[in-house]
């Protein structure tokens, strides 16, 4: 087994015959140091849109340097297979980047978490069997390897299920079995028992495939019952797991670059998960193991009866004629209807009238963190018009018209008023405080939380029923005529 001799080991090893090898090792160390620094800079530069693309460059250069450095250190490696692997990987990866529509970015992200976890699990497995062949597994290595492979395999299937749900290959109506949690915990418990057994006797190699199968099963069972609106949290958590398993791989392989890069990915996933959970006022355990119970409060009939005002595109166009300040509130329905470009058209039309336009973005709008921002940026909306919830909430009262497109639970005032509601305490966009509200929606059907929305029955609210894109096109046409 070739191991990178770190400086402390070098002094002892400096036999003349090894000079070449040591020189390469130093080259390797240098390349890893530069790569680690570039990865950190990459994330630092990403913090602002002005420098963000420089961040991507830094990441790319860091990655290239790391790969070249590694190829220089490990000369014994079969270059042919690595070359083939890189070509095939590039051929799969490039189309996933170039032709992927922006509405499908959540699916792509879930799939890439699956690939990342798969790589970690495969490499961990290969490493185990290599060590097994040399009869050289100590218990400590085994323990970390077991956790690494378990995380890798559960993230692999979990991400595949998330991909299937986002791509609508797996119906999101599947809510799992009644005793799903008991099943999940049994599988996890069994996996832990196998992992501990392996740690106690690492040469029991038949246990290793069992560990992998249990990991795969756990990932599947964990994500299957989780519904669409919880996807932003789930994707962030899986992101964190994928990073953590890469980092653990670094512990096993004495590779500090893997430890650092994996930890960066892991902490990013962790931060995003926390942001998403806060934005829904829920905990990790509640997202993973909780079930949304329909509220015992008023039924939709009590709330809506006789109070919902339906409007035509012409009515709304007239309302918008005189508006000085309009806020758009996009939700996942906007992505489904692919209506981001039409929204932009309407905004241009309004700006021509001297109206100020802003977009209110709830953190969990869409199916992954930041999804709405990307969609609107694609439609050429300048990013200084995209406002975060905390920034725009106090200003709804000074807004003439708030236009809600394909959002529901994130604008439901019950979150503020009804402590028994399943979304009680969830921070919402205070759309109801605007002078006028227009909701573009197919029907009065409830959102993910399964509860009615009193906003739709409010005095200042007009409903424009229809497909988001079609309704907006009619609205733009009515504006142009008016």
């Amino acid at each position, binding site marked *: 087994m070739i191991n990178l001799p770190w400086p402390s080991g070098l002094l002892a090893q400096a036999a003349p015959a090894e000079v070449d090898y040591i020189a390469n090792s130093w080259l390797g160390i240098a390349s890893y140091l530069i790569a680690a620094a570039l990865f950190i800079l990459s994330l630092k530069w990403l*913090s602002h849109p002005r420098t963000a693309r420089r961040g991507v460059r830094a990441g790319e250069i860091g990655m290239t340097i790391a790969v070249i450095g590694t190829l220089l250190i490990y000369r014994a490696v079969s270059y042919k297979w690595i070359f083939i692997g890189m070509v095939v990987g590039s051929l799969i990866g490039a189309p996933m980047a170039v032709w992927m529509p922006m509405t499908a970015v959540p699916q792509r992200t879930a799939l890439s978490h699956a690939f990342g976890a798969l790589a970690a699990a495969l490499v961990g497995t290969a490493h185990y069997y290599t060590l097994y062949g040399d009869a050289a597994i100590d218990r400590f290595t085994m323990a970390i390897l077991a956790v690494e492979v378990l995380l890798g395999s559960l993230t692999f299937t979990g991400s595949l299920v998330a991909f299937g749900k986002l791509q609508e290959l797996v119906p999101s109506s599947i809510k799992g079995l009644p005793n799903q949690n008991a099943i999940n915990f049994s599988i996890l418990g069994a996996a832990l028992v196998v992992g501990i057994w392996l740690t106690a006797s690492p040469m029991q190699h038949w246990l290793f495939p069992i560990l992998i199968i249990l990991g795969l099963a756990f990932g599947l069972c964990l994500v299957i019952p989780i519904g669409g609106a919880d996807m932003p949290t789930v994707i962030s958590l899986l992101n964190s797991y994928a990073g953590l398993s890469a980092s653990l791989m670094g512990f096993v392989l004495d590779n500090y670059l893997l430890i650092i890069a994996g930890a960066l990915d892991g902490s990013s996933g962790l931060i995003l998960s926390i942001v998403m959970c806060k934005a829904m006022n829920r905990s990790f355990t509640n997202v993973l193991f909780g079930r949304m119970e329909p509220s015992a409060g008023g039924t939709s009939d009590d709330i809506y009866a006789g109070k919902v005002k339906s409007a035509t595109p012409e009515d709304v166009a007239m309302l918008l004629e005189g508006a000085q300040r309009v806020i758009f509130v996009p939700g996942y329905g906007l992505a489904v209807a692919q209506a981001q470009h039409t929204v932009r058209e309407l905004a241009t039309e309004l700006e021509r009238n001297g109206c100020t336009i802003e977009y209110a973005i709830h953190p969990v709008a869409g199916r992954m963190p930041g999804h709405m921002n990307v969609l609107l940026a694609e439609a050429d909306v300048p990013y200084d018009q995209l406002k975060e919830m905390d920034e725009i909430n106090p200003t709804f009262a000074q807004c003439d018209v708030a236009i809600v497109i394909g959002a529901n639970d994130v604008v439901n005032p019950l979150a503020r008023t009804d402590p028994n509601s399943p979304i009680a305490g969830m921070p919402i966009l205070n759309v109801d405080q605007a002078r006028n509200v227009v909701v573009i929606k197919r029907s009065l059907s409830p959102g993910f939380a399964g509860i009615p929305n009193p906003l739709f029955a409010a005095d200042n609210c007009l409903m424009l029923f229809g497909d988001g894109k079609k309704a907006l096109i009619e609205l733009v046409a009515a504006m142009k005529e008016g």
Partner: protein
Amino acid sequence: MHNLEPKLFTFLLATFLGLEVIRRVSPLLHTPLMSLTNAISAISVVAAIQVMSEGHTTFNHVLCTLGVIAAMTNIIGGFWITDRMLKMFRREKPRRD
């Protein structure tokens, strides 16, 4: 596997550094953030090469080649789509008065 202590410190420091740096990323860019960190964690391609150099069985080579494929998919796809997304983020054009 030895030197646990420096590894744990490295992990700890990298995690804290990551938390501090990423906390400053605007929510505007959370989607590109996720695809960029995903591409960076595809550094496991390095692990695949390292493990391939250790073993000489076909089994080892097959697993590691598959590992290289999976990681490379994320490297190419991740950096590329991140750049594609970031290209779209523009400031408002200066108003013509």
